[in-house]
C-alpha cells in the first residue's frame, strides 16, 4: 500500500508525516517523533504500557494505526505536565512510591488521567477497576492506588 500523509497534533505541536499505513501509532510516536516515554509491553492490547490520550481519552497506542490518528490530538507522558510542573498524578506516583521499574508508569498515569476525569473522587474499588487495563508486575498496585488517591485529593 502506498504511504499516506497524516497530520497529528502531539503534545500541542502540529506534526505532519508520511507513514506506512500499517505503522502503529506507538511506533510513530516512539520512532518517528522520538517520544520514547510511551512504552510497549505486549502485542495483544492487554498491558496498557502504551496508553496515551487520543482527543482527551486514554487509548492504547499499540492498537491504533498512525493513519487512524490523522487529524487528532495526542497527549503523551512527555506532554502531560505544563511548564515543568508535575501533573498531580505524576506527583502522586512520586509521593506514594507508585512505581518501581517505571516501565508501566507512563501508561498507568495516562489511564489514570481519564479515570480521574470521569470519576474525580474515586473509591478504592473504582480506582482498581479504572486501572485494570494496565498491568504492573512490580508494585502489587497498592501504592499505585494510593498515588491515584493522592492525586484525586490534590486536584
Amino acid at each position, binding site marked *: 500500500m502506498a504511504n499516506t500523509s497524516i497530520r497529528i497534533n502531539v503534545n500541542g505541536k502540529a506534526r505532519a508525516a508520511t507513514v*506506512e499505513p*500499517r*505503522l502503529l501509532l506507538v*511506533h510513530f510516536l*516512539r*520512532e518517528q517523533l*522520538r*517520544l*520514547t*516515554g*510511551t*512504552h*510497549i*509491553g*505486549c*502485542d*495483544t492490547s*492487554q*498491558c496498557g*504500557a502504551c496508553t496515551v490520550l487520543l482527543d482527551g481519552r486514554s487509548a492504547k497506542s499499540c492498537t491504533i494505526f498512525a493513519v487512524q490518528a490523522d487529524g487528532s490530538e495526542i497527549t*503523551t*507522558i*512527555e506532554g502531560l*505536565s505544563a511548564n515543568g510542573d*508535575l501533573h498531580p498524578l*505524576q506527583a502522586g*506516583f*512520586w*509521593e506514594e*512510591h507508585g*512505581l*518501581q*521499574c*517505571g*516501565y*508501566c*508508569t*507512563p501508561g498507568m*498515569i495516562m489511564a489514570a488521567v481519564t479515570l480521574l476525569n470521569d470519576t474525580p473522587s474515586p473509591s*478504592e474499588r473504582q*480506582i*482498581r*477497576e479504572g*486501572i*485494570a487495563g*494496565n*498491568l*504492573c*508486575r*512490580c*508494585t*502489587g*498496585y*497498592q*501504592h*499505585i*492506588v494510593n498515588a491515584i488517591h493522592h492525586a484525586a485529593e490534590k486536584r
Partner: protein
Amino acid sequence: MPATPVLPKLVGERVKRREDPRLIRGRATYVDDIALVGMQHLAFKRSDIAHGRIRAIDTSAAERMDGVEAVFTGRQIAEFLDPMPIGTPFPSPEHRAVAVDTVRFAGEPVAVVVARDRYIARDAADAIVVSYDPLPAVVDTEQAMTGKPAVIHKDFANNLAVALVPSGTGVTADGANVDDTAINDAFAKADVVVSQRMVNQRLAPTTMEPRGVVAHYEPGKGTMTIWSSTQNPHILRTFIAALTGLGENQVRAIAPEVGGGFGAKINIYGEEYVAAAISKRLGIPVKWAEDRSEAFVATTHGRDIIGYIDIAAKRDGKVIGLKLRLIADIGAYNMLLTAAIPTLTMMMANATYDIPAVRCSLTEVFTNKTPTDAYRGAGRPEATYFVERGMDILARQLKMDPAELRRRNFIQPHQFPFATQVGAVYDSGDYEKALNAALEASGWDRLKAERDAARAQGRLVGLGLSMYVEVCGIGPSASLPTGGWEHSQVTIERDGRISATTGASPHGQGNETTFAQMLADQFGIPFEHITILHGDTGVVKQGIGTFGSRSQAVGGTAIHMAGAKVKTKMAKFAAALLEAHEDDIVFENGTIGVKGAPASAKPFASVAAFAYRPVPLPEGLEPGLSDEAFFEPTNNTYPFGCHISMVEIDRQTGEPTLLKLVAVDDAGRLINPLIVEGQIHGGLAQGIGQAMIEEVVYNEDGQLLTGSFMDYAIPRATDFPRFELTATVTPTPVNPFGAKGVGEAGTLGSTPCIVSAVVDALSEFGVTHVDMMLRPEKLWRIIHGGRS
C-alpha cells in the same frame, strides 16, 4: 552567627525515590529507546514445533526483500559463534544460540534477519521457510525420566540433566556417602506420617519491559559496547567478551533503565550473543527488541518442580523427620543458573524448624519446553511451599491449630547461628516473634470466629498460615560462579559532591535512593549532594549484579566500606587543615570540624578542595579523595516471616477470592521502609499470582498454550485486597547495617498460605491438598463432586 542547619539522619526514613522524576516524566532511557546512526534491526525466525530435526531452511525470499541486510541460519551463525556457556558445574549438552540441526522447544531460534527497520526484519523472518522432520515431544516431566517418548540430548539418558543428588542428614557434603539410619529411625519412631505429592507449577516471569539488546562493535577501535536489559552488566561483559573473542577491557556493557528483572534477566541469552557476534561480523550497530509473544517462549520460565514430601511427627506435633524428593523440569537446555536453582530448594528444606533428620534428593529432567532459570525467589518459594503445605497437612491430621504446630517446632533464638541438616547456617532469627506478630496483626482468633460464622451460613471461607525463611544476600564467593562479593568506588569530588559506584545494578529496587541515604548519613552532607552510578561497566569498575535480594546486604555494605576508607582519608586532610588530631574530627551538617569546637568547623566542600590542591601536602598522604572496596560477606542472610490469608470460594462457581493477606516480614534492619514495603507488595503480588491465576501450560505436542497476556494471567489491580504489612527487626551479624534483604520475601509465604486457606475452605469435602493454580473449575469439581 546564623544557626547551622541540622541535616536529618536518613537511614531508616521513608525517603522518596530520586529515580522517579525521570520515570514519571517519560524521560528515562530503556534499551528499546536507544537509536544509533546506522543501526539495523534483528528479528529471529523461531521454531514452531517443540522437537524435530531441521531438514532445510530456505532464506532466499527473505534475502531478496528490500531493506534486508543479511540473513543467517543457525549453521551460519555457528561458524562465528561458539555454543553458549553456563554458570553451573553440572554437565550440560551443547546449546547453540541459534539451532543448527535440531530444535528442542517451540520458540527456539533457527535463523536471524538483519534489516533496516523492525517491520522489514519481521516480514523477512516470516518469509523464511523451514521444513522439519518432527520428533515426539517430551512434555510430561515424570514420563520424561523413563526416556519416553524420546531422548532429547543424546548423552543424557532418560532425559536426566542431573541424576539423583541426595543431601541432608546422613549424607556427606559431596553427596558420595549416604547413611539412612537416622532418617529411617525417625520415620520408624513416628506416631504420624503425612505424605503428599505437590506440583509447584511453571511460571512466566513477565517483566513489563521485555528483553532487548543493542550491540555496537566499532571496527576501528576493536571495542564492543552492548546495552542490554540485564540485572548484571558485569557478568554480561565477561560472557560477551569470552564469546566474541574480545578482552573484558574491550567490552563495555551497559544496563540502562531496566524494566523489571525478577531473575529472568540474570541470564546471558542467545539473542545477546547473536547481536554482539553479528555487530562484530558486519561492523554495524544492531538492535533486537523482544516482543511479548517472543518473551513467553524465549525468556526463561520459573519454578516447575514436583515435590514428594513425607513428614514424621510425634502425637504432640513435634516433627522428627522430613523427606523431600524433588523432580525439576528444566526444559530443553541448561541456561546460566538453571541447574543450580532447585539445589536452593534442597538447601531450604529445613525451613524454620528444628528437625533432627531431614533428607532431600533432587533429579533434574529435560523436556521440550522453554528452559527454566531463576524467577523471584528461585528455589526458596518452592521449599517453603512444600514444607509449609506439608506442615498444614500435618496440623490437619493432628487436629492442631497450624500456628501451634509451628510454635512447637521452631528453631529457638538462642540456637543461632543454626546449622541446618541440609547445609545452611542460619545467621539470626526469632520465628516465634514473627508468628506472634502475624497472629496479633491478623486477629487470628477473631478471624477463626469469623470463618466459623461464615461457614454456619453455608459460605466456603478458609484461613491459611505460613512461615518462611529464605536465603538472601548471596555470597560468599563459594556460593556463586562469578564470586559472591560486591564492589563500590566512592569519590568525593573537588566541590564536595560525592559520586559512588555500585555493581549492584538495579531494575526498580531504588538503589540510587537507599545508597545515597546511607552515604548522606555517613558523611553528614545533604542527600542531594550524592550521586549513585550504576549499570555501566565503563563507569563501575567491577560488580556482580542485583539478584537474590543482595543489593543492600552486599552492595550497600560495599558502598559503606568504600565510604569509610575515603572518610578516613578526608579526616586526615581535615586534621591537617584544622591542626587537630584525626581522631577528633567530626563530620556533621555539611561541615568537618573538631570535636567540642564547633566554631572551627570548615565546610565539607573546602576540605574536599584542599584534598585536591593540598598545599602543603600533609605527610603520608596522596592527593585526592577516592577509594574502593570489595565486600564479600562471610555468610548469606536468612530473612524470615509469617503470612496469613483468608479466602472465600464461591460455592456456585468455584471462584476463590482473597479477602485478607497479612504479612509479617523480618528483613533485618531497614534503610528505607517505603521501598521495603514496595518490594514486599510486589513479591506478594507474584506469590498470590502463582497460587491463584498463573500457570504456563503446554499441550501434548509441546505447544505453549499460554503465550500471551490473553492466556497467561498476571494479576491486575482488581485481584487484590489491601495488603496488611508488619515488620519485626532481627538484624543479621554478617554486615554492619544488619540488613538481610527483602526483594523476594513476598513470594515465599503468600503462596502456601493461600493454598492452605483454600484447603481449609474446602475442608467439608475432605480435601487435604489442591495443587496450584487454584483454577475455579478445579475448585468447582471438588465442591460439586461427580455432579456435572
